[in-house]
């Protein structure tokens, strides 16, 4: 059963990887990459690394590839295909890919494929091998420095993304501005749910109504006064 599953997922993984570069439509290439990543997750499962498998699907297939799908669906429909580069670019691509492939092949064959040779005498695995508990423990003891460095890098990337994506009100030519906590609170009168329920908008509308009424009242009284004065003047004139 394990062998069947292995070859099934291995074939699907390779087919997906070939699909990424062979398909013309970028959207389909992205989908082929998703298939490849899910097949890799299957291989992780066969290696008892269920946590890594789940993380692979959640992080790569679920989060990273979603972004790719997003972008290629937005702009990729009539975008460039891999054949549209210049002749030099294509030659360079084949050269680089070829040399990388050679290095990988040397590494793989250099190991003498020992994994295949002693498939029958695998070490017995301790309980909980590859589980979340064991990986967590390793991350916080043996690989603590690398783990913390990676999280610091990710944090910097997240902060950078927030800063870059921030809405600029008066064009791009804006000087450096410190992001304050108050920026997270929407300004009054933007029609948020809170304003709707707490009555800020309604209160503003009523205030405007009152103001309008007052202005109208003032204007009518002023007009009335002017009319009265005119009438009085007329009366005076009539008397004289």
């Amino acid at each position, binding site marked *: 059963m394990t062998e069947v599953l292995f070859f099934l997922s291995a074939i699907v993984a390779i087919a997906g990887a070939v699909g990424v570069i062979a398909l013309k439509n970028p959207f389909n290439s992205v989908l082929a990459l998703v298939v490849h990543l899910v097949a890799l997750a299957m291989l992780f499962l066969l290696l008892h690394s269920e*946590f890594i498998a789940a993380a692979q699907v959640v992080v790569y297939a*679920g989060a990273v590839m979603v972004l790719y799908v997003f972008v290629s669906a937005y702009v990729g429909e009539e975008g460039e295909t891999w054949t549209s580069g210049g002749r030099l670019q294509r030659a360079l691509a084949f050269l680089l890919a070829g040399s990388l492939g050679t290095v990988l092949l040397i590494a793989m064959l250099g190991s003498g494929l020992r994994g295949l040779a002693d498939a029958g005498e*695998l070490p017995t695995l301790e309980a909980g091998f590859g589980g979340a508990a064991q990986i967590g423990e390793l991350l916080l003891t043996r690989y603590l420095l690398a783990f913390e460095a990676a999280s610091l890098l990710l944090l910097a990337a997240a902060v950078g993304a927030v800063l870059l994506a921030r809405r600029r009100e008066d064009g791009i030519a804006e000087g450096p501005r410190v992001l304050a906590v108050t920026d997270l609170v929407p300004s009054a009168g933007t029609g948020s749910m809170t304003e709707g329920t707490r009555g800020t908008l309604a209160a503003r509308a009523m205030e405007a109504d009152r103001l309008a009424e007052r202005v109208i009242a003032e204007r009518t009284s002023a007009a009335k006064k002017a009319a009265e004065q005119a009438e009085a003047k007329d009366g005076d004139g009539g008397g004289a």
Partner: protein
Amino acid sequence: MSSTFVPMAETFAVETWWVQIIKGVIIALIGFTLIPAAVTVERKLLGRFQHRYGPNRAGPYGTLQAGADILKLLGKENFRPAASQGFLFYLAPILAVVAAVATFAIVPLGEVVTIFGQPVGLYGIDVGIGPLYVFALGSIAFYGLVLGGFASGSKYSYLGAMRAAAQLISYEVAMGLSLVGVIMITGDLSLVTMVEYQQEHLWFVLLQPVGFLIFVIAAMAETNRAPFDLVEADSEIVAGYMTEYGGGGFASFYAAEYLNMIIAGAIATTVFLGGWAIPFWPDAPAALGPFVVIFKTFLFVFFFVWIRATLPRLRYDQLMSFGWKILLPLATLNALITAVVVVAI
């Protein structure tokens, strides 16, 4: 095959292989039976909430209406728009429904019982990664929505798919973080272990009330339920990603949606409401387990319908800022405080 090298499905199983196959079929059938039940419950309740009768023609009290609808949909002709991409168009609903049914396998309906001398766990699989399995399959199901929207070749579907992508990513984070507290207290990711912990101690709804609230809200958003149903907001984008589907494709998306709602309720039941445990009756017969879980799950279904009948749909920016600026910091704070308390005690 050496005994030390077994894939996940075999690692945590207590049964022989043929029991697993029979069990898998039965659990899938339970899932597919609960879908029309949930549809009926929703339509009847919505009717009541809105001062109408709801379906009342087919069968007693209209209980056969959902079944009749499914038969009607499956009998319809399968057509596709000229602008759609054939393969992806047909793949999308299949992905959605397969991922939903596979997620249902993880819901523990009861403990391990002995049936005809065979030990049988009343759940599909008890994986050691628990909630992560749900999230992994959730991201597969997500491709069902996005492919459906993209392959339809329609603007409405496309808008629905884009909304789905943004919404699912936003609320998945808060949903995952809301469970971290529970995981830290239990010290294990297995859902069966979580239920056993709650049987011995307190239900997590009392220990983790904030986590519970965040989970239920995020689950409503994840399953595209009102008031978070912008993905298929009828008044704006017809039906979102499933606009162009009819017949079987539409039925599959519809079924996946309701099954996802049931699963959200079942996971909330398992993690926060003690799973198959009955309060003040610690040695209840194990055969009652599945009924208790389904009863509690339908309490959640009732709640979801109630909310749908009560609240209006959010605006898109409200949805996003609520997810990122309220739910996520709250879930993080909850996880932090829980961590401090767990270490201190």
